[in-house]
Every structure is written in structure tokens, then in C-alpha cells.
């Protein structure tokens, strides 16, 4: 199986007429079994089509046209309009919202997440590439065009969670080359506040029969890795975790942010060194190089089998 979505998950693309959204829609339609992109929303563009997908002014119109609940939405609208688009999706029963947009202030993200929590919806991102179930479906730009995504991702036992969209593909490709496929790979986004953290996705992977190990990509900034370490200690997880930490050089440059907005180090617990120590204490192996990850995963999987 997979987490978050499968081949029967219909979704819409909000901001579908934007340049990036048009190619993202094509990619999702082409990949695996072909995503059910049941509509797109761009205010004022009712009646158009993008690769055969009907465009609506409102989410409500899209739901009405679909004739049933729409589970997912990929949000690609500009930062100033993202919060409104997400609140609209939540209001109309969308349960899984992938926010691709970058440069969204934390206040907006916090408001979207608070509303999602009230209504039982889940947010992935912002500043992410989405979710992919290898050979089945992808929701978002993750992996790129269908043929490129097929090169990097194959079905298998490893769940991938990454704060970097590009590194989700790099790590999955490395796993694939070593004969380790992926159950689901999630690009969770590079911002300081995101809808779903490692620890929040772990129970989903835990409940997924296909998943036998987890690989995560981490960075300095924030307490998400500490939260994961706490989760691992408090829950007797069956899943071994292998981590990779990028941006170690940032420890020498406090107050500066590189790569993603969320890498800003604001406290003692945020540094790469501190995170590596915490992950290690929780029994999470931290690889020095990406190329070591497959062997570490195989060792760990052998040990728990």
C-alpha cells in the first residue's frame, strides 16, 4: 500500500493556469496509473481546459462538477493568495492539501494549519514538491516529468520523508539503484512551519504494511528532528530510520539561512551537530554520505527482520 493517497485519490490543482502548474498537471496525468485530476481552479478562468482538465472559478464549482467529494488539492497560487486558496479547499471538504508555493509568511501557514486541524484536513508543505507513490500516482511536481520520475522511483519497502524536494528524488534514486524501492516518498517542505513533520507522518508509515524502513533528509533549523527523536523514544516503532543531515557547515555561521527559509538557526537545539546527536541518541543512524544510505537501510532491515 501507500500513505496519504493511492490511484483512486481524485484531486484538483488550484492555480492550474500558471506556467508551472500546467506542466505539473501534465506530469501527474502521465505518471503511473494516471492521476485523477478532476479539475483546476483559477478565478476568472471558468470554462477553460488545461490538458483536458476543466478549469473552474471556485473549488465549490469543481466539487459540484465532480459530483462527489474531492480528496486532494495541489496549491500553486502566488504567496499572497495561498492562504485564501487553502482555506477555500478546507471549507469544501478537501482532506489532503499539498502546498507548492514558496515564501509564505509563518503567520499564514499557522492559520492554514490551525484551520486544517479544526476540520480534520492535512497539509503537506508549503515549499514542497508533493507526494509520490512509485509507479502508481504522484501529486505535485515531485520527480518531474513522468519518464524522469520513473527513472528515480520504484515500488518497494522504504518510506522517504524529506525537507528538500530535489533531495527526495536524489535519495530515492540512490535507493532504487541499490534495489530498494519506495512505498511512498513525501517532500514535506523547507519552511520553518510546515503542515506535516516527520513525527506526524510516522504513524501513517507505521500503519502501512508495505513500509519496512524510513529514510529522512534533514537540515539545520527548527525542532522537527528533536520531535522525531522524541516520537521514536515514546513509540515502540517497528521501523528503523536512517537519516542524512545536510548543511553542517551552517553551524559555523549562526543567524544565516541557506537553502530553505526554515534553515535559520534560532536556538541552541537547531544546529546540525545538536540534531545529529539527538537523532543518534534515539537510535536513528545518521549517514555521512547519501551513497551509504542503502547499505545502512539493508543492515537495519536485516536486524529487525
Amino acid at each position, binding site marked *: 500500500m501507500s500513505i496519504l493517497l493511492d490511484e483512486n485519490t481524485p484531486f484538483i490543482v488550484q492555480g492550474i493556469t500558471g506556467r508551472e502548474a500546467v506542466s505539473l498537471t501534465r506530469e501527474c496525468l502521465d505518471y503511473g496509473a494516471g492521476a485523477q485530476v478532476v479539475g483546476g481552479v483559477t478565478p476568472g478562468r471558468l470554462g477553460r481546459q488545461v490538458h483536458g482538465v476543466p478549469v473552474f472559478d471556485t473549488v465549490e464549482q469543481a466539487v459540484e462538477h465532480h459530483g462527489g467529494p474531492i480528496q486532494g488539492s495541489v496549491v500553486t497560487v502566488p504567496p*499572497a493568495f495561498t492562504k485564501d486558496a487553502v482555506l477555500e479547499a478546507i471549507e469544501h471538504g478537501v482532506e489532503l492539501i499539498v502546498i507548492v508555493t514558496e515564501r509564505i509568511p509563518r503567520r499564514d501557514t499557522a492559520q492554514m494549519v490551525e484551520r486544517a486541524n479544526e476540520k480534520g484536513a492535512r497539509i503537506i508543505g508549503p515549499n514542497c514538491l508533493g507526494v509520490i507513490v512509485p509507479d502508481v500516482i504522484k501529486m505535485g511536481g515531485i520527480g518531474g516529468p513522468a519518464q524522469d520520475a520513473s527513472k528515480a522511483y520504484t515500488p518497494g519497502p522504504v518510506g522517504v520523508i524529506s525537507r528538500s524536494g530535489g533531495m527526495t528524488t536524489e535519495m530515492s534514486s540512490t535507493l532504487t539503484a541499490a534495489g530498494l524501492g519506495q512505498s511512498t516518498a513525501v517532500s514535506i517542505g523547507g519552511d*520553518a*512551519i510546515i503542515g506535516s513533520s516527520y513525527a506526524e507522518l510516522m504513524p501513517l508509515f507505521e500503519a502501512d504494511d508495505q513500509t519496512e524502513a524510513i529514510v529522512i533528509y534533514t537540515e539545520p533549523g527548527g525542532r522537527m528532528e528533536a520531535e522525531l527523536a522524541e516520537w521514536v523514544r515514546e513509540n515502540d516503532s517497528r521501523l528503523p530510520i536512517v537519516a542524512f543531515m545536510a548543511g553542517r557547515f551552517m553551524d559555523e555561521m549562526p543567524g544565516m539561512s*541557506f537553502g*530553505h527559509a526554515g534553515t535559520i538557526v534560532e536556538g541552541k537545539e537547531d544546529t546540525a551537530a545538536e540534531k545529529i546527536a539527538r537523532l543518534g541518541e534515539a537510535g536513528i543512524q545518521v549517514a555521512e*554520505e547519501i551513497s551509504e544510505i542503502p547499505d545502512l537501510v539493508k543492515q537495519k532491515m536485516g536486524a529487525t527482520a
Partner: protein
Amino acid sequence: MRFFEYEAREIVKQAGIPVTDFGFATSADQAREIAERIDGATVIKSQVLTGGRMKAGGVQFAETVDEAAEHAEAILKLEINDHVPRGVLVDPRAELEHEYYAGVVWDGIRKQPVMLFSDMGGIDIEEVAEKHPDHVGRAHFSTLRPLSDFQAKEVIAATGVTGRPLTRITPILTRLAELFLERDMTLAEINPLGELADGSFVALDAHMDMETEARPRHKKLLEDLGVGSEETRQARESTEFELAGEEVDAMDHRGVAGNVTEFDGNLGLVIGAGGGSLTLFDAVRAHGGDPANYCEIGGNPSVRKAAGLAKLVLEKPGVDKIAVMMSIVSNTRVDIVARGVVKACLELGYDPAEKIAIFRVPGAWEEEGFKILDHYGVEYTDRSVSMHEAARRAVEKIPSSA
């Protein structure tokens, strides 16, 4: 984006929180005028975006107007941690009965803001939290619903504060929390919040950080404070090389070829994307390499921009070769990056095979990219060579500086 103290205090004042009758001066004469207006003992404080002012001698006490002017003169010349002061703040000296702390920050795990209060003000809140946890009150609050005073009251009462201080501080903490959200701050702190002899309260120092992404929403405030859009207020000022990087990125709106940070090594880096750049920079250093810069390519930049970035790095004094490396790309086209970096070498009169230590950008349109590199004899690899291995090969090609 951090504000200077005099700006932060202005923000606090605008939110209806009482402040002293302070003034900001950029010359000793101006400082004298403010001291004359205050007509009493003053404190002269250096306006720098760095800590340790007191220790460095950037805060001085004056009894007379002449003394205030003298201190201002000295402090204006005093560099603190390599920061030249923007000016000095001239503050009436307040006799304090007690010092408190009030602050608001984000909690990225709960995904909500949290207000903090301590009756042990004037010192670092992290230290208080560590040594005297019962003297720190805290509570998360909603970003959707309006704040009510009782939330602040509970936080303050939790530290044992009661009586008139409790009722007087409550609206101050509430206003600080509101201002934190309204102004898109990532940190809003009043420390110390001073209690005067007459029982009134006043913000004696304030620290405010606004989220960079939210700056466009607060144009009016920034304009009023005189903060120009060119002021990034990063932890360190941008270098000329970094500013030139911004110009490259601004050539057109296609993709990113920028976020350049200067280092002093000999291996120029043309790397991407966000996470890939972090990984590759670490990888170069892990193999003993000495990067000349950090940068990010992403989102499919134009050939012109990729070439502009490569040229900038190639022309940086001390750069021997460049390494062109990225994690697997899906929306950036490999051939465009290849074309850009080769073009940069040719335009500068270099042999691309000589100047490009390695090209490791696998992904979309790679066959086309590899054809171009073949033509110029540049060493390249596909995804079968890891990012760390590519970094190692690049470092090996740089003659050791010894």
C-alpha cells in the same frame, strides 16, 4: 529581518505600549539636543545589530548634557563585533523598582505563537528558563481567533506576579502578542520591561525580528522607519560579490541562479538546488576542498543567467576552477545549465575542459547536456556517481595551495 533598538521601540510605541521619551542621534550634536530636551541623567546606547553592547562599552551613563555628547561621540566611533553603529539612542535614565521580561516567538512544532513572561527581566530569557523554570510563564495562542486579556494574565500569574503589576502588565503582553502577529514578527521581545517608582511600566529595550517573506506587507511601516528595500539586515552585510550575484539573479524572472554567499577558497561552486547545495557544500569540505562561494541554481534559469552566475564565480579572485554540481533535477534542464557554464568559460577566454573540474547535473534533458559537454571535453557524470564522489573528484583537480 532584525530591527535596530530605536526602530523596535518605535514599533512597540505604535502598538500602544509605553516607552520612555528616547531619541535617536547620528552625531554628537544631535545627541546633545536630545539630552537637553530630556533635561536629566541619560543613557547613551550604541545602535548595532549584534549582542554584547554593554560589555564592549557601547552603553554609557551620563549625568550632564556635555557628558551625553562626549559618550555619543565615542560610541559612534566604536565598532562592536565588526559592526559600525547606525547611531546612538539617547534615553532618559529611569529609576526602576523591578525588571520584567515579555516576549513572543513561534513554536514550529505546535505551529502556533507562544507568549513568554518572566518576573526576572534584564537577563537572557534562555538562561532564566534553564535555571529558574518556575519564573517563566508561557502559553500558545490562536492565529485565527482574537486574543483575550485573560490569556496574558494567566501567563503572568503563573510566575507568581499579582497585585497591581499583574493588572498593569496584562494589556502590555496582550498588545505585544497582537503586534507579533500583525507585524509578521519572528521574535518580539521587551527586556527589560521596567516598573517605575509610580507603579507604571515602560519598555526599556526591545528586540524585533520581522519575517523577510512578509516585508512586502509592511511597506508603510518600513517606510516610516526609514528601512530601505536594499537593507537585507542579514547576520552580516552583503559583500560586493554577493550583490553582484543578486544582479545576475535579477537579469530575468526565469528560475533562480543566485543566493550567492562569499567564502575565501579556491574552488568555485555552481551548485543547486536548495537541499542539493547544502549537501554539496558539505561534501566539498568533507573532502578537504576549500569553496570560494555558496550558491543555488533551481527552477530552470535561462542560459544567460546560468552563464552570468558561472562567470561571476570564475572571475572571483583566487578561483582556480569551478565545479558544476546539482542533485537530480526535474524541472531545471541539464542542457541549459551545461550551455550556460560552457558559455561563461568561452566568453572569458577559458577552455571549458580546463576550467570546469566536474559537471554532475543528472536529470531532465541530460543527453542533450552531455552532448555539449562531450564536444568541449568537459568531465561529466550521470546519477551513478554520487554527489559526494563528484565533489571528491572536483577537489582532487585543485592544486593544493600549500
